[in-house]
């Protein structure tokens, strides 16, 4: 059973002084997220990612379409007990402590009394906030707030977690920790759906991604598929500063950086290059298949969309 099935969710706002002009925030979206995967929802700012998430959370009402979450209708209140949500740049009640806040959320999620304090402590440990007893949330840094946000999203042990820009405002250490956490969640059998505009994160984490731009879906698929080697090239790296003649003869581009040389050669010439290096007794460091980065794919997709739109206009 898929974790999320989005069936034509659509949102049009009426804007303008007299509220007569329609503005489409999301064109009818059809998307499926499988159970147990980490799914990335990518797109530039204003693409419709947050709108989609808010509709799934029941914060915004769609103009058309529906969705099923964990096999149930998305408006069913009981579904909410099994999902967690981290909104973008969350903000919490200034005057509560982290413990009080999480305790409150646990109460609302139906976690029983005895379990509650145990869970709250465990969560705070897990997100890396062990020493915050008695400190009011208004004294927390942005990174700390983000961690609290994650804590509240997972403390009731939901099967499906929604993160909206989870890395925003975090330093590289923090981002690493969040990434690790998301991996852990996946290992625990949870499904993670997160939106972001930072492609490197998506590349590292996601099983599948969807790319959305100006309210329209531009592409869906496994990261590996989307970024499969299209150029058919490999990068060969070896120690030293020598470039064997045979390799040069292959017409490769070679760069010398410090004590290493990098050469870009065709895939089918890979073996020839390795032989050449062995003959010259040069130490091979690595052979890396050159993949289109997700970024390149992204940019290309979006550019194509722009030109299509331009031609149609």
């Amino acid at each position, binding site marked *: 059973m898929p974790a999320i099935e989005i069936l034509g969710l659509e949102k049009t706002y009426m804007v303008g002084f007299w509220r007569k002009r329609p503005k489409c925030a999301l064109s009818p979206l059809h998307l499926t997220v499988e159970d147990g995967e980490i799914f990335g929802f990518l797109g530039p700012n204003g693409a419709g990612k947050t709108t989609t998430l*808010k509709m799934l*959370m*029941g*914060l*915004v*009402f769609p103009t058309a379409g529906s969705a099923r979450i964990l096999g149930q209708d998305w408006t069913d*209140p*009981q579904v*909410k*007990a099994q*999902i*967690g*949500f*981290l*909104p973008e*740049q*969350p*903000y*919490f*009640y*200034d*005057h*509560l402590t982290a413990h*009080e806040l999480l305790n*409150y*959320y646990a*109460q*609302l*999620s*139906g976690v029983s009394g005895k379990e509650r304090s145990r869970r709250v402590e465990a969560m705070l440990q897990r997100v890396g906030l062990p020493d915050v007893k008695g400190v*009011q949330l208004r004294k927390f840094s942005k990174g700390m707030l983000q961690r609290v*946000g994650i804590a*509240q*999203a997972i403390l*009731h042990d939901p099967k499906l977690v*929604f993160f909206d820009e989870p890395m925003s405002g975090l330093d590289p250490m923090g981002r690493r920790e969040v990434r690790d956490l998301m991996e852990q969640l996946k290992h625990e059998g949870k499904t993670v759906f997160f939106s972001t505009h930072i492609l490197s994160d998506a590349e590292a984490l996601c099983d599948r991604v969807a790319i959305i731009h100006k309210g329209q879906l531009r592409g869906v698929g496994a990261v590996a598929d989307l970024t499969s080697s299209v150029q058919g090239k490999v990068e060969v790296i070896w120690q030293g500063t020598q470039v064997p003649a045979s390799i040069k003869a292959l017409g490769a581009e070679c760069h010398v950086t410090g004590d290493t040389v990098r050469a870009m050669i065709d895939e089918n010439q890979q073996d020839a290059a390795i032989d050449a290096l062995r003959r010259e007794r040069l130490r091979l460091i690595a052979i890396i298949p050159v993949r289109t980065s997700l970024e390149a794919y992204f940019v290309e997709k979006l550019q194509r969309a722009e030109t299509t739109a331009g031609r149609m206009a």
Partner: protein
Amino acid sequence: MKARVVHIASNTFREAVRDRVLYNLIAFAVLLSGAAILVGQISIDIEKLVVINLGLTAVSLFGLVIAIFIGIGLVSKEIEKRTLYTVLSRPVRRWEFIVGKFFGLAGTLVVNTFFMAIGVFAALFYVSHKFVRADALILIALYFIVLEFLIICSLALLFSSFSSPLLSAVFAFSLFVIGSFAEDLRGFAGMAHGLTRWLVTGAAYLVPNFSAFNVIGSIAHEQPVAAQLVWHNTLYALFYAAMALSGAVLIFEYRNLK
């Protein structure tokens, strides 16, 4: 379901109580009661009168400010600051949120009024050196003041459910002023004809009517308050607050939280 409402209410209460603005206002009100003593000393005979009048008016006005301040924060601020999203993504119904907020705020106001009232009674004891039976009337006046607060809260919540914090505060305050003159509004209606009469009469019943709640003047002169009036006012406050609250629930049910 009820449990969630209670949790939301107690959370609201806790958040409100920690907000330092509250303390400032309470302190101010208590200070005013103290000032009343000074003012009263200017003319010995009416010391007690001034303490009661000034003290209770201070409780009423400051409580009003608190009611509006916090009342607005209930929904408007939550939406602006997005604390609401994490709450509503849980198995919480929207109406539970509104109702819980209301009770949390009501509780806060009752506690506030209690502390401010202590200030008034302390000032009273200071000038009279004893309590008389008639002083129990002050409790009735305070009770009516709390009823007024409940109505204002429900209105603040109603406006918060669709309007920005600033506008909500303005509307709530305006309705307080209009409500204080609602009886005159009905008088105007009586003198008008035709369509105007219907419209004004309708408006006069729609706005909160506070005229019957203000007994500060009469109890300062130690005039008794009819038991029936207490009963009537209680019912009116309950029904009016229920109406405003239902309105808030209804509006909030359909609101897109952008």
